[in-house]
């Protein structure tokens, strides 16, 4: 996007307060965290060395990556289906889809996590129902494990995954789809060989956003994981507020931020920011 000089100046003036806020509220304190990671309890690279050798930290990192990957797959797939209905459905379907996308934004993340506990716990709705129809005799463990975390996080992230997809689908030239059908391609084939590849930038953007969000998730895994499926953010919290091991907590934070930063850089190499909204 290239604008005139005054356009760009205007944009800069409007962006300035936001930038200032980000620096004061995030960048500045984060520098403090970086400092801790190199100085606590003693100056040096000790905490980074510990991070590389500590098996607990490593298993949490791997679990976090695994959960983030699964959640991304689930969320983007579900969001894709919802977005197709939202962008290309009949007027009634569109309204319904829009409702489903927007309502979750009005309910707090805490409420939603406890809602899932109520649904998934041993004596929750799902288990009681499955038992009452005689499908199972013992309750299934649906919560306080990775499964519960994945369900809760996907539910939270699907609406966010919708927007890059919607933007890609809206900018798609309808005539290309007609052309495919006119050349003899069935609706199914047109969907898989033309529609999906043409919304590729939306899929990448949507997946990146979901993945990056998942890496830093705190509340949902803490509640639905029940301490048994700890993710990286919860580990940082535990190191700083419970064990007090500020240096290690800080070092984990720094690694997480660097990793997310690298992912974002990758994202913007493939997708223009305006394709994400």
């Amino acid at each position: 996007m290239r604008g005139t000089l005054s356009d760009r100046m205007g944009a800069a003036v409007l962006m300035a307060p936001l930038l200032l806020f980000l620096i004061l509220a995030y960048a500045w304190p984060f520098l403090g965290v970086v400092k801790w990671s190199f100085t606590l309890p003693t100056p040096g690279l000790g905490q980074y060395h510990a991070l590389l050798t500590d098996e607990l930290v490593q298993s949490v990192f791997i679990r976090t990556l695994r959960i983030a990957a699964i959640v991304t797959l689930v969320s983007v797939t579900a969001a894709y289906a919802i977005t197709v209905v939202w962008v290309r459905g009949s007027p009634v379907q569109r309204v319904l889809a829009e409702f489903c996308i927007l309502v979750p934004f009005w309910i707090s993340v805490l409420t939603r996590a406890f809602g899932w506990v109520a649904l998934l716990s041993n004596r929750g709705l799902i288990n009681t129902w499955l038992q009452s129809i005689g499908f199972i005799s013992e309750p299934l463990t649906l919560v306080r494990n990775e499964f519960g975390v994945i369900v809760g996080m996907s539910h939270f992230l699907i609406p966010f995954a919708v927007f890059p997809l919607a933007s890609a689908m809206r900018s798609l030239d309808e005539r290309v789809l007609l052309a495919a059908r006119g050349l003899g391609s069935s609706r199914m084939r047109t969907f898989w060989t033309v529609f999906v590849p043409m919304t590729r930038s939306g899929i990448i953007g949507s997946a990146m956003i979901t993945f990056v969000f998942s890496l830093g998730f705190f509340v949902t895994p803490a509640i639905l994981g029940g301490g048994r499926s700890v993710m990286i953010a919860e580990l940082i919290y535990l190191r700083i507020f419970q064990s007090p091991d500020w240096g290690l907590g800080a070092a984990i934070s720094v690694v997480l931020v660097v990793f997310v930063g690298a992912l974002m850089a990758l994202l913007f190499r493939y997708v223009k920011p305006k394709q994400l909204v």
Partner: protein
Amino acid sequence: MQQPGRAAEIKANGIGKSFGSFRALDNLSLDIGRGEFLTLLGPSGSGKTTFLMILAGFVQPSEGKLFSDGVDITNRPAEQRAAGMVFQGYALFPHMSVEQNIAFPLKVRKKSAAEIKTRVGEMVERVGLKGHEKKLPAQLSGGQQQRVALARALVFGPGVLLLDEPFSALDKSLRGQMQAEMKRLHQETGTTFVFVTHDQSEALALSSRVAIFNHGKLLQVGRPDEVYDRPANRFVAEFLGEINMLPVKGVRPADNGATGLCEDRAVNMRCKAEAIKGDAILAIRPEDMSIAPEASVNQNGIAATAVASTYLGAATKLDLTTRQGAKVTVSVPNEVAAAALSKGNSVWLTWPAEKGFLLPDGGQ
């Protein structure tokens, strides 16, 4: 690659299309012959694209029936009609290379890899895209994209090729070149072509027949010379090119044609006057009129004064006003125009009886 006789014959019977209360097409009946090059010509918004979309099966008509080779295809979905279509703006698959775009309809038809390779190769050659096979559409010029669209629409040997203003985005010189190639492709493939344009010279140059649209109605269908020389009404006459309109009074049949009074002078027409009696409009193309110092009694003529001229290179366009104030334009050799203008006083405009034709008075 195209088996002769596979070209489709299409019959549209009373086709109508409404969008809400808006009539986009009204009671349209048209026979499209096997292997013909039919042009749909009309101003923007006249319903050409809508009709093409109905032919392709993308739009369902509100009324009427459509037949292909005698079979009712009104309710047949687009993917089963096997019409080749070139869209306005080409609608290429942006994520596929030139080769993959052209191979798409063959892959859909589950042709063998070997057959796809030969047919795509032939088609690439035929439309002059050799060396560009691996490029993406975004890496091609407008003219090249146009060729990919044509190749993709023709490669599976469709019974009919539908083209929606394929040249409107090209510059003038490229357009001329593409028109010539289009004619060649039509002859080579033998397929029925239905070609949409709003450019009358393109329509006259390319087609075996022209169908003229206005406000969702089909006004006239005929060979280019028929519609140009004998337009059915004033709209067609004016849309196909510049034309002079002179009021004539007391039109009645006469020996091999009709006769009437134009600015108090008897004029003769070769066309029949059965349908038109009394007052009418005499229409004459600018290039059919000449300038003379005198007109003999049995010659068609009208006195006029030259008022302005436009030099066009090969000829000059001369604007004149008749005694009763009608405006006339003629296209004459440059020196004739100069002479007429310098004299300042009245000259005679003459035309052969077979060149003028009658239109209903004030009629559309």
